[in-house]
């Protein structure tokens, strides 16, 4: 299992992560980011791509 952490102080809800890992990240009805705090190992590459494209560099794998 992978653990994911988004720093919601930094996140500006740009939604770039959503296109890379839609199974993990989405914008809710208020256009705010929502995400799964855990994900299957098969999502590792997608999450890594989401980490790279986040303009605020707000996403990381949590220990």
């Amino acid at each position, binding site marked *: 299992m992978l653990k994911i952490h988004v720093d919601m102080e930094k996140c500006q809800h740009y939604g770039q992560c959503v*296109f890379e890992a839609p199974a993990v990240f989405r914008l809710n009805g208020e*256009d705010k980011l929502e995400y799964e705090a855990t994900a299957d190992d098969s999502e590792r590459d997608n999450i890594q791509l989401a980490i790279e494209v986040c303009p605020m560099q707000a996403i990381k794998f949590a220990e």
Partner: protein
Amino acid sequence: MTDPVIIVGGSLGGLRTAESLRRSGYSGPIRVFGEEPHAPYNRPPLSKEVLAERVDHAAVAFPQGDTTADVEWILGTRVDHIDLGRNIVRDNRGEEHSYSGVVVATGLRSRHMDLPAMPTSGVHSVRSLDDAMALRAVLTPGTRIVIYGAGFIGCEVAATAKKLGVDVIVVGKGPVPLLRPLGVQLASDIQARHEAHGVKFFMNSKITRVIGGDRVESVLLDNGVEIWCNAFVEAIGSEPNVELLHGNDVDIEHGIRVDDNLRITRADGTPWPNAFAVGDVARFPIPRFSDRVRRVEHWNIPTEMSRKVGKVLSASLAGSAELEDEITKAFDPIPTFWSDQFELSLLAYGLIDEADRVELLEGRENDDCVYGYFCGDDLVGVCGVGMRSAVMAYRSRVGRKPASAS
């Protein structure tokens, strides 16, 4: 020992290229030359948080993972020349380094006015962390700054400085700020919002002199108006760092011309072997729009280019069969940008400046809304003010239909 892959430019494009090479299976040596003394850091906060909050390099540095732990970073060192025929780069100490592959990620530098006498202090621009640190030292309540240039960087610096209690005056050449990138409706809305916060604009104006000796005292406009100020910010655009390729058979006018695999091309259009350019400095075609080559100065571009270059270069160096397959897939990104100014939060996709017509697609003018930018019948760009999910839904639709692509 095998020659390393050399990456020139230690910023977003340089770092992402190193990461992508590793992810694509290349395990040989990688050496990055960066002119700035700092490890790669994120530039968009330079016009926002770095000015507004007293953050330092650590707050904007890109996190680096284990995959790139063995990359050799040679910072504070400029590459003066690349010899594409001999596979050698020469650094500013005159030392030569052979490479197996080279990736140019040298980005842009701020453009400066061509005026004879400029004051020796108080003149600023915002491209690097050092620039931003120098500027924020003068952004104290009660001071007055004049910003020349009403593009994204000028407008963002204006908004940030205003929030800090600085008296802000923007001088721009066009009738409204951000006209070329956004179109007149949205641009006028943005100007009005800035004005509501107290930013003053002198549009349709050129600065003909910056007056002062040791310090900036005032600027003179072409209509004769003189505006006193404590500091002056040049935000009149940028120029690509291409000089290191002089003397090669290349096309480096307004950026380094690359093909649809991001390989640096000769004047006849054929690619140099194992030589690439990524990021702001590259001039490339985007097939979903047209075969026109252009630079795109958006943050998502270096990352997307690096993914492609990592695959092509590592397959090429390994002599693997995947290379043939990879080069048939043309690089075809969706340009993406965002901008935050006061309460205004923009998110855009596509190539808005290729449009000849703007239409309100959703929402209301001067409020949260989505504008569509059209060239003929084709939606070439969208820009949302707020309304994130709505804009995102248009992302995959921007581009030109093959019939009109010429």
